[in-house]
C-alpha cells in the first residue's frame, strides 16, 4: 500500500493527466526473455489504473494485474474490459506477492516501489518485494523496475525547483539506482541494464502550462505534491504567480526543460533471476 498517497481517492482523477511512459522501452526489455512476448505470462506489480497493461495486453500472452488499491483496480478493470486478452486482477500487498512459485516469465513494477517504505527504514518492503519477485519468477525470469533517479526527481519536472521540500522528501522514499542494484543482487538477481525513455513525459496534457500547477487534478497525477504542506504549496504557487507577472516564467520553464530533456523523467532497471 502507499505509505503517503491515497490512491483510492486519486483513482477518480489519475487518468486525466497520467499516461504510461516508456512502453517501447518496456517492450524491448521484455523481449530479452527467452520466451516470445506473445507467450509470456507477465505480472504487473502495482498496475494502478492499468495504463501499462492496456498497452501490452494485445502483445503479451497473459497479464496478471496486482495492486493494493481497490479504487485503482476497479479503474483497471473498466479500462481492460471488453478487449482481447482480459487480464486477471488481484488485490494484494506488493511486499507479500500471493502467487505460487516459478510462474511468471517477467514482472514489471511501474512507479510503485517508492510507495512501499517509510523514509530512513532501510527499505524493508522493497527487499520483501524482491524476495517474492524472485520466488514467483521462472528461472531466467525478468524483473523490470520502472522508477525515478534522484537526479530525475529534482530536474525531471520543470516545477521540481519550486517544490524543493517535497522533492527532498520524495528522494528519501526512492531507492537510488545503485541501491536497487545492490538490493536486487542480494535477492538473487543479475543486473542487465538501466534504460531511460528520454523523449516523453508522464503528464503530457498541460505539462508546459504554468497554470497546470494550480489544478488539483494535475497535482494529483504527481505524488510529489502529496508530500507538500499547504503552506509550501502556497509558497510555490506564489512564486509561480510572481514569475507569471514579471514575464520570466517561460524562460524559467525553458531552462528547466533543458535539464529534463537531457536526463529524462524515469528509468527502467532491468534484471534477471540468477541461478
Amino acid at each position, binding site marked *: 500500500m502507499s505509505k503517503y498517497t491515497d490512491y483510492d481517492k486519486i483513482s477518480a482523477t489519475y487518468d486525466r493527466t497520467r499516461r504510461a511512459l516508456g512502453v517501447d522501452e518496456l517492450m524491448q526489455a521484455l523481449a530479452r526473455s527467452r520466451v516470445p512476448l506473445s507467450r509470456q505470462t507477465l505480472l504487473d506489480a502495482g498496475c494502478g489504473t492499468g495504463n501499462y497493461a492496456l498497452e501490452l495486453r494485445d502483445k503479451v500472452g497473459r497479464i*496478471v494485474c496486482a495492486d*493494493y488499491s*481497490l479504487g485503482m*483496480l476497479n479503474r483497471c*478493470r473498466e479500462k481492460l474490459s471488453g478487449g482481447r486478452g482480459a487480464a*486477471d*486482477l*488481484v*488485490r*494484494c*500487498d506488493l511486499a*507479500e*506477492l*500471493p*502467487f*505460487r*512459485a*516459478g*510462474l511468471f516469465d517477467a514482472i514489471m513494477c511501474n512507479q510503485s516501489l517508492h510507495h512501499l517504505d517509510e523514509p530512513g527504514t532501510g527499505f524493508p518492503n522493497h527487499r520483501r518485494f524482491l524476495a517474492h519477485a524472485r*520466488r514467483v519468477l521462472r528461472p531466467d525470469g525478468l524483473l523490470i523496475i520502472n522508477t525515478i533517479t534522484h537526479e530525475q526527481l529534482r530536474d525531471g519536472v520543470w516545477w521540481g525547483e519550486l517544490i524543493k521540500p517535497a522533492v527532498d522528501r520524495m528522494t528519501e522514499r526512492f531507492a537510488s539506482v545503485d541501491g536497487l542494484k545492490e538490493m536486487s543482487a542480494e535477492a538473487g538477481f543479475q543486473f542487465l541494464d538501466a534504460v531511460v525513455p528520454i523523449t516523453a513525459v508522464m503528464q503530457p496534457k498541460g505539462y508546459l502550462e504554468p497554470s497546470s500547477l494550480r489544478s488539483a487534478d494535475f497535482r494529483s497525477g504527481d505524488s510529489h505534491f502529496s508530500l507538500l504542506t499547504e503552506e509550501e504549496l502556497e509558497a510555490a504557487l506564489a512564486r509561480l504567480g510572481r514569475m507569471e507577472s514579471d514575464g520570466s516564467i517561460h524562460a524559467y520553464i525553458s531552462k528547466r526543460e533543458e535539464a529534463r530533456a537531457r536526463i529524462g523523467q524515469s528509468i527502467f532497471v532491468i534484471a534477471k533471476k540468477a541461478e
Partner: protein
Amino acid sequence: MIQGELLDILACPSAGHPLSLGEGETHLICRECQLAFPLIDGIPVLIRSEARNMGPEGIAGEAPGERRQGRE
C-alpha cells in the same frame, strides 16, 4: 466468480500455500493458515489484514478443496 486459471496461480500471502474456493464462492480459503480471503466482485483480496480467521471448525465446515496442488 473466479476463473480456474487464476485460482491455480494464487497462493496464501502468509506462507505461499495453495488456496481453494470456499462455500458460496465468496472467499478463498487457506486451510493451512485457516484464513478466508474475500472475493470482491471476482477480485481476490489476498491481504492478510483483510482475511478472516476461520478456526478449525470453520475449515471443517468448508467442502473439501478441489485444488490442492502442492506448493513448489
